[in-house]
């Protein structure tokens, strides 16, 4: 439609564009720019070309942080997406399971700080719920300082992440499964297919788009992970749970390395965008799959 005057559309867009450009676009360009300088945030920045990037790629803690976030992503694909899918299968299998679906979503809306502080207590070696449980089953020797032990800290965080987000993917898969036409599953049931077979062979392939999106969210969201890691362990013990964003925040806000931190930011952002890009290419190829 033609606007009544040439400039009204721009007037409509102006407020949103102002906030978005000022708070997001401008700082994004600034971050890329800053990544080519050695800058402590106060003194005159010194242009160093790609040296920050070179340093980042040789920084063992930073490289390890990608390893950690990789483990986290793979673990959460199982603990969040796969468990969410299985739960959705169970919940949709019969009426009366709806309250489970509603309840399991609760952690998704709580502040991560609340959940992290709570789970720090659950893992507490002196009075935590896990210690209490191990005492109760007569295995107190299995107790550990979970979050202070290099072997367990990262897995503990993955575990908590699963506790939070399995309900989120359950909700997403539930919405997808609701849209699978009843006629198809009923026809299969009449042909004698078992319900678990109907689920895996018919329903899951039909909601392909839903689990593809879920995987994408889980992977790209995981790479950006920060709150849980920062609050539960702050990268410790001995950098065992350091992820790219916690290291970035440490570099910029504790060590005052604005330029170097910016180069880390650009690398992480690129990783997220490249994965998103590859995903959209792969998706375009498989576009003939039923759309839901």
């Amino acid at each position: 439609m033609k606007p009544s005057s040439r400039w009204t559309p721009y007037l409509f867009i102006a407020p949103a564009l102002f906030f978005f450009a000022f708070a997001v676009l401008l700082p994004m360009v600034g971050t890329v720019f800053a990544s080519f300088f050695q800058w402590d945030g106060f003194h005159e920045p010194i242009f160093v070309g790609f040296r920050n990037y070179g340093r980042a790629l040789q920084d063992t803690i930073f490289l390890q942080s990608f390893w950690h976030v990789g483990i986290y992503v793979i673990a959460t694909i199982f603990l969040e997406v796969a468990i969410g899918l299985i739960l959705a299968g169970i919940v949709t299998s019969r009426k009366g399971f709806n309250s489970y679906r509603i309840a399991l979503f609760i952690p998704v809306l709580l502040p991560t700080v609340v959940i992290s502080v709570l789970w720090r207590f659950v893992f507490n070696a002196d009075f935590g719920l896990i210690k209490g449980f191990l005492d109760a089953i007569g295995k107190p020797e299995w107790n550990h300082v979970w979050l202070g032990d290099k072997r367990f800290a990262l897995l503990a965080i993955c575990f908590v992440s699963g506790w939070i987000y399995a309900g989120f993917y359950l909700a997403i898969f539930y919405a997808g499964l609701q849209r699978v036409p009843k006629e198809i599953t009923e026809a299969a049931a009449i042909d004698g297919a078992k319900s678990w077979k109907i689920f895996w062979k018919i329903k899951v392939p039909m909601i392909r788009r839903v689990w593809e999106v879920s995987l994408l969210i889980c992977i790209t969201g995981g790479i950006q992970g920060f709150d849980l890691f920062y609050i539960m362990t702050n990268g410790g013990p001995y950098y065992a749970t350091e992820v790219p964003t916690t290291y970035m925040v440490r570099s910029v806000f504790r060590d005052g390395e604005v330029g170097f931190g910016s180069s880390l930011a650009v690398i992480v952002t690129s990783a997220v965008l490249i994965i998103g890009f590859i995903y959209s290419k792969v998706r375009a190829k498989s576009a003939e799959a039923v759309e839901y």
Partner: protein
Amino acid sequence: MKKFSWVFHLLLSIYSLFFAAPLIWMALSAFKGNDEIFDKPFSLPHSYNFKVFLDAWSVGGLSKYFINSALITGISTLVVLLSASLAAFAFSRFDFKGSKQLLMLFMIGLLLPIQSYFISQNKLFEYLHLKDHKLSLVIPYVGLGIPLATWLFKAYLDSLPKELFEAARVDGGSDFAMYRYVAAPLLKPGIATVAVFTALGTWNEFLLAMIYIQNESYKTIPIGLLTFSSRYSTDYQLLFAALTVITIPMIIIYIAFNRQIVAGLTEGSLK
């Protein structure tokens, strides 16, 4: 299949127990002294004294954090709803020069992680003295919410029949009147969705709040709670009470509006 439903029930029950145990433990521990928390993790508290919630609320300063969070969440959400719906209306209904390019710009925002800009945003806000004010967080939160809000609103508006707007135009409606009297009322379901994800995202946001707010009296719940937890780091009862006092009202609101809230948090990823 019927006879196996007990297996499903069993699996779900085990999972639910694992899921609910920390939350129940949290609420019960709020009534227990430190001795009881250490010695009897699973027992019911021997008395129920609700005064501890009041302590957390007033002495611990949660009331202050709560007011700050409510204020920032309310303002940010209103600004996002208004500015994103205006922009979405223009993108969806008008032909104008540069509309594709401008829309692309907003869509980039859907992909950009916060990591791509918060370092420079911090420097920019420092330079402009925008940090550490009562409303400091509104601008970054609005910037954070606008891309997805604009996109969802545009999707809703695109699905409306164009005759609606053409009829309004024939009746002599101005551009703004069409937004106000045709588009806005029809956006209601979209408004609920956008309001939910903006409000919850703002209410829970941690990283930017931590960077921008140092002043104790401007802190929001997430960073306030972190301060609280280090200040009273060994008063476990008070800490459990604080966690409970933040959690319970959110669960009650969620139970009342669970449809809208689940939709608000999942719709953006499904579209």
